[in-house]
Every structure is written in structure tokens, then in C-alpha cells.
């Protein structure tokens, strides 16, 4: 992969279910992410996607293209227009830089748009090197040091 390489777009239907379950699995119980009346009382027309779900979708968009074992180093996300139920979020990305350090380090610029405009702009840095879990610290076995 080289600088300037576009990633294939990913189209995500923003269902009410995605918004609510996204909030739940990120442990975000703010009412605006699951209660339409509470969202309206705060000036939004409906529930809207939380930032942690947007983070997750952007991250998996990038890692799924880099293959198993790609490791994220940095993720910077700025939100624009909200994602409401019924929207369609289209993520697009371009690899903007590639460097060789300890493995291949890529920077990907990602944008996500829906019917009302730009929902997210993000910069993701990843290393294409499988993570290996370090061996557990030595525990004193039978007859070992106390």
C-alpha cells in the first residue's frame, strides 16, 4: 500500500438499532442516544449516534482493509453533522503516508458523510504488524522462589 491509495468505500445503514446498540456496547447511557423524547427536549430531532460508535466504525473500516493483526496507533475524530436513524453513512479513506519503522506505519484520512453532510473527519495511524501477547511474567513454580 502506498501514499494516495484510496480505500474502497464502506456504506453503513444508520438504523435505530445501530445507534442504540452502539451506545450500549460502548457503555454510553446518555439518554440522547436511546430516548427520542429526551433527544428532542435537547434540540435534536431524534436520537443520534454517539462518538464512541463513530470511533469504532472508523477504526474497523481502516483495520478491516489492513487485515488481521493491524494495530492502531492513533485515532483522531472530529464530528460534524449527527447520524440520525434512517441516515446512510458512507466512509471513504485515503492512505496519505507510509513509513517503515518497526513495521509498516500507515496514515489514513477518513471521511464519513450522510444525507446532511460530513458526519466525521478522522486521521488514523496504524502499524501493519501482528500483535503478539507477551509471555506471562514468570510465576514461581513448585520449588521456586517464594
Amino acid at each position, binding site marked *: 500500500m502506498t501514499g494516495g491509495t484510496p480505500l474502497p468505500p464502506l456504506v453503513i445503514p444508520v438504523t435505530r438499532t445501530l445507534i442504540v446498540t452502539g451506545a450500549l456496547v460502548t457503555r454510553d447511557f446518555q439518554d440522547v442516544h436511546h430516548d427520542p423524547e429526551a433527544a428532542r427536549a435537547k434540540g435534536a430531532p431524534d436520537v443520534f449516534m454517539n462518538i464512541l460508535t463513530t*470511533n469504532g466504525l472508523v477504526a474497523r473500516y481502516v483495520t*478491516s482493509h489492513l487485515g488481521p493483526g493491524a494495530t*492502531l496507533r492513533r485515532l483522531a*475524530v472530529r464530528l460534524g453533522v449527527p447520524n440520525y436513524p434512517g441516515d446512510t453513512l458512507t466512509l471513504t479513506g485515503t492512505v496519505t503516508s507510509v513509513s517503515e519503522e518497526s513495521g509498516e506505519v500507515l496514515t489514513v484520512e477518513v471521511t464519513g458523510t450522510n444525507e446532511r453532510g460530513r458526519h466525521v473527519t478522522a486521521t488514523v495511524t496504524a502499524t501493519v504488524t501482528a500483535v503478539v*501477547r507477551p509471555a506471562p511474567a514468570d510465576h514461581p513454580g513448585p520449588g521456586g522462589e517464594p
Partner: protein
Amino acid sequence: MSPLAGPDDDDSLALRLAAYEGRPAAVAARGPDVVNPAMIRHWCEVMGDTDPVHQGPGAVAPAAMLQVWIMRGGAPRRSGGTPERSAAYEELLALLDDAGCTAVVATDCEQEYLRPLWPGDVITYDAVIESVSPRKTTRLGTGHFVTTRTEIRAGGELAGVHRFRILKYAPARTGTQGPRPRPVINRDTAGFWEGVAARRLLFQRCTDCGTPRFPWVPGCADCGSERWTAVRASGAGTVYTYTVVHHPPVPGATMPHCAGVIELAEGVRMATEIRGVAPEGLRVGLPVTVEYADAGGGGDAGGTGGGQLIPVFRPAATRDEGP
């Protein structure tokens, strides 16, 4: 500046807010769960992440879950004796609430991942209030951006840095000021409100002549008897009449607000609010059913309504909506 300048004074508020920059937002706080395969699997299911490195008992946690491990979820504000928010941060948020900035929305997030997280990792974190912006007007409303920087550790080792920016704002479009008026509960109506608290809709029936009545009053308008029994209504009814209120704003209600009189199946009529239907969908005779709403109206997550329920009505489910 007057020494009496309060939080409604912009300059005074800006100075008071700025004083929180650099103060801790969380000190030696602990993530509520150790890193675990179940939460990893649930997250991957929803995000559509099928990378095999996140599967099974030895799964590595997706890096973008970093903040998930420090989320409070539905836990009480303080648990286990470890406050996850510092007093300074609580004060700052309360100051903004008092200034009318009761709503919150996240706008930016920057995360740096220094070490992968594995099942069994114990999460601890410290956070600092990095900045509090001057007053800003946005599409959502007017408020202040608050940026925090959190250092997240696993087993004491720095695993990630999480910078998060929220906008605390006064909603621009609700057209409502102040809390919803609370119901008037007195000796004559206490029985009705006790029923509502238990999600039962109660009306009175005269013991002597059998006439049903609502609202609750001590005596029967037909025979004058003061003897009565409380009867539970089914909650089903129809719209007897209604008014769509566009103006003036009703505190705590979303405008336009639908006020109506419901004729219950049992024959009594009840003045109430009709929800869940657009004004053009309302009609006399529309079948409705009761539900119980928190009288607190807006307020932030965690519920600030004080638990006072009120009965409201919404269109009854029709046959073709069900399976």
C-alpha cells in the same frame, strides 16, 4: 465588576470557568470492569469487526475500545468509594448546568494507543481539565467546549492517552424554559397520584349511586355522597377533543405540544398530554392508551426528573403493526 455578579454574568462566568483549566478531572480512578472477552465480543458484533485477533478467550481488545473501559454506564455516580470524577470536574459541570448549559454533546476525540489491552487487564486512569472555551454559539445552542485529557493504564502501565472534547450547551430549539410544572398533589388527589406512581390509572366510583368520576374530588356531583371507591381503569380510551399548542412554549415540553381530553373506556374523561403522534395525525375518536412519563422533562443522562411520573396518552397500537 460587581462582587454580586452571578453565573448569568458572561465575564464573571468566563473567569470562573477558566479557573478550572489544569485541575484534575479524575484522580486514581478505576475502570468498572477488567478487560474481558464478553465486552470485546459485544462491541465487535455491533461495529462489524470480524478480525480474528479479537475473538476467543485470548482476544486482544480493539484499540478503539479504549474509552469504553472507563465509561460509567448506568452505575451510581460514586461507586466502590472511588470517585471517577474529581470534585473540581463536578463543580465545573454544575457551574455550566447552573448557567443553563444542561445538554452535552461530544465533538472531538483523539486517542493514542501505547500498549494493547488484553483480557484480565485492570484499568486505572487519571484525567485533567485541559481547557474550557469562552462562550460559543453553535447550531445546537450556546455553550462552552470542555476538553479533558485522560491517561489510561493497564496494570499500572500507560496503555493509552484519550483527549475528549464536549460541548456543554443550552439547547437552542426547544423553546422551553425551566422545569415542567409539577402536579399538585393534595389530600383529595393523593390516591390518584399514588396510583400513577404504581403505573395504575385510578378513577373514583360513588359507593351509593355508582357514578364514576374524574378528576378526584371528595363528593359525588350526582347524589352528594362522600363515600367512594377507587377503580383501576384499563388505560384504553379515545381522543374526545384536543388542541395543538404552538405558542407560548410549555416549560419542559417539546413544541408543538398536544393537549387533549381522553374519554376512557370506563366513561370518565381526563385532561392530559397526547404524545407520539404528529399534529396532523390527531383526530377526535383516535384510539389511545396510557403510558407513564417522567415529569422531569429534559435534564441530563442519569435522570433528573426526581421520579415523579405523570400519565400521558399515545396512539394505541393497531393490529397491522403487530406480528
